[in-house]
């Protein structure tokens, strides 16, 4: 075995072992169980569906499916690329050793690909296995397509990361990569929403163009390869192999110089500002709210992680405005307030950086939790109020007021669920780990948000009493949250001696 390959495998094995241990740490065993259940449930549903199918679905549909999984893998690779290529603590060790830089880059790229492949596995595997057993064994080629697309995604992720770092430095590259990853991840959804966003006269043409793209040879190539067709599969293998080889060969020097410069570039800018706050805030609650808002607003990476959620909300907002009239802004108010409040409260609570300081202070636990909740609520509820203002100006002031109240109460419950069960996480890992936290509270938040939004939507569309009943149920849920979600002690990692 050549030194390059053996060194690559050595580093890759170490990377995968660390990733696996990080994944299994803490409460993640719950995450594993959930993924396991998701896989089982997915397989049952997929087998039921595919066994009833008499013939394969249209190739355009499969092409969209592969495009979706490919884009999600690309998004995952882009999200992880900067961290994996420039912020791992082991570079001092690796790059001062006689290991070839190409081996380090290749190992990191493969690790990136493995991460991207695992991201879609719980959703892709049931469909793939269902197709293999229900339709044709030829679909087994889908496994190869999955891995090839992951390799392509990793390769593109590396090119993007290295290019961005060279161009704008590590810190800004992280932010841009986050936004770009979110855009890529949402691009298929945004593409499908495009006809709804465009004026009516362009709508039909756009739909036809999208269908044409779906049926094109290149777009359908992964789907055809996954059906076991020789030429597309060979083309994909050649393309992925060429990309990986080219990236490893051509980018090693850029990678090394970028890593060497990373510490210089990553030094935080010395931004000038007002040293003394004009008004010294008194009182724990107000000081905490101000502190949290400052920390959030001054953290572009965090904002870059949060704002992409708007990618899914805003097209729906315009779409509603166009199709159902401005009345449907009322549920959008609820979703906006709840979704962002939940995220920002998680940032303020679980992402707290100074637990040692807080825990050894005489501050009251409940006051602090409520202050963090308020900090998470302020901006989203204000944003929701702005949407409400649009609705009020459009001639529906009562609906706007109701939307604001329901949004604020549902958001408060979502925020309460966050502050009653705080599990400290490093801020940079917050959204990576958030999905692995208390699943039950996450499900309750989504149920509350969806029922309140549905109630508002139904009421706004004219079915007032049905809407009121649904809203009543959702608000009972809110009350139940405040009544039954007890405050759990904060779980800190035990320090060693």
């Amino acid at each position: 075995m050549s030194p390059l390959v053996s060194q690559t495998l050595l580093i890759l094995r170490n990377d995968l072992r660390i990733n696996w241990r990080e994944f299994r740490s803490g409460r993640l065993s719950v995450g594993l169980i959930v993924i396991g259940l998701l896989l089982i449930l997915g397989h049952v549903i997929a087998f039921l569906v595919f066994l009833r199918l008499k013939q394969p679905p249209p190739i355009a549909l499969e092409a969209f499916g592969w495009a979706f999984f490919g884009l999600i893998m690309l998004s995952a690779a882009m999200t992880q690329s900067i961290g994996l290529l420039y912020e791992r603590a082991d570079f001092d060790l690796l790059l001062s050793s006689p290991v070839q830089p190409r081996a380090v880059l290749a190992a990191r790229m493969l690790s990136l690909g493995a991460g991207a492949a695992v991201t879609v596995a719980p959703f892709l595997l049931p469909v793939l296995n269902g197709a293999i057993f229900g339709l044709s064994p030829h679909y087994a080629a889908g496994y190869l397509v999955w891995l090839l697309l992951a390799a392509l995604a990793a390769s593109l992720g590396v090119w993007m990361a290295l290019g961005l770092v060279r161009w704008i430095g590590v810190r800004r590259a992280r932010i841009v990569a986050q936004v770009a990853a979110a855009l890529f991840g949402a691009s298929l959804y945004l593409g499908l929403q495009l006809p709804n966003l465009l004026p009516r006269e362009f709508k039909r043409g756009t739909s036809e163009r999208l269908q044409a793209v779906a049926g094109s040879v290149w777009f359908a190539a992964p789907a055809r390869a996954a059906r076991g067709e020789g030429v597309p599969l060979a083309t994909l293998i050649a393309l992925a192999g060429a990309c990986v080889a080219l990236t490893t060969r051509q980018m090693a020097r850029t990678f090394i110089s970028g890593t060497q410069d990373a510490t210089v570039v990553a030094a935080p800018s010395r931004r000038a500002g007002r040293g003394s706050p004009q008004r010294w805030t008194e009182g724990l609650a107000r000081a905490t709210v101000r502190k949290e808002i400052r920390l959030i607003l001054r953290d572009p990476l965090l904002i870059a992680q949060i704002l992409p959620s708007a990618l899914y909300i805003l097209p729906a907002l315009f779409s509603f405005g166009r199709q159902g009239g401005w009345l449907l802004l009322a549920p959008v108010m609820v979703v906006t307030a709840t979704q962002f409040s939940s995220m920002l409260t998680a940032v303020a609570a679980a992402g707290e950086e100074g637990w040692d300081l807080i825990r050894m202070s005489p501050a009251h636990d409940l006051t602090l939790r409520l202050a963090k909740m308020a900090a998470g609520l302020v901006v989203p509820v204000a944003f929701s109020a702005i949407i409400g203002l649009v609705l009020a100006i459009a001639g529906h002031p009562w609906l706007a007021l109701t939307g604001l109240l329901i949004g604020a109460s549902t958001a408060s419950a979502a925020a309460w669920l966050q502050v009653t069960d705080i599990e400290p996480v490093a801020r940079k890992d917050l959204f990576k780990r958030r999905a692995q936290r208390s699943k039950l509270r996450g499900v309750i938040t989504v149920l509350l948000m969806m029922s309140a939004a549905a109630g508002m939507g139904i009421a706004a569309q004219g079915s007032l009493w049905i809407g009121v009943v649904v809203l009543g149920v959702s608000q009972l849920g809110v009350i139940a949250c405040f009544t039954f979600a007890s405050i759990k002690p904060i779980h800190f990692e035990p320090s060693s001696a």
Partner: protein
Amino acid sequence: MFTSPSPEASLPLACAVRGLRKSFGLNRAVDGLDLAIPRGQLYAFLGPNGAGKTTSIRMIAGLLRPDAGQVVIQGIDLAVDPIEAKRPLAYVPDDPLLYGKLRPMEYLEFVSALWSLPAAAARPRAEELLRTLGLWEKRDERIEAFSRGMKQKMALAGALVHAPTLMLLDEPLTGLDASAARLVKDLLSDFVRQGGTVVLTTHILEVAERMAERIGIIQAGRLAAEGTLDELRERAGQTGGTLEDIFLRVTAAPTESPPPLP
């Protein structure tokens, strides 16, 4: 064990620790620690790596829950009334985690609020501390741009802003250059002169030798020796010996291995 008679009976205590125990899994980090730290003194808490210094200090600061034992801060049991017990306390860890995105005054504003300090008292004190610690010129910069030494000074400013009477410092001189270290030592001496109590851990034995009124040496989670430098010399039979000699002798002595956990 080379311990001198406890000063508990004669002096008012800033901090009393009785029978403190803490285990991490099968590792017993602190094993029945007793301390009596009089007010208005600098107490150096020494020990080899992994002896249990940081664990002990974190338990005294209320950051770690002991498996057994009692911590009493200025007459208030930490387990019974943690809020009041923490009021006179300040703790600076060896690697303080400050809010990088905040500016110095904003950080001190938040710390003051944690200790419920009125703005009229907190703001001038914060400004004075920044001037004293040489951070006033940096007041417009975010803490993330500070060097390690400046961060250490920032943490000290945070610890002092609420006018504590008991400071727990874990390796406070780590990463400081000579002038910054001198500044911190002077600050701590002034603090003690004004009636405050300092408990510090350090690996720089000269600092402990020169500054500390009492010295405790911990090994394997137990107090292996305690007293003034002269008392330690006397008990170690090393008249004229340095603290380093005593420390090496004490920590080289075989200690009884901790009993297995139930």
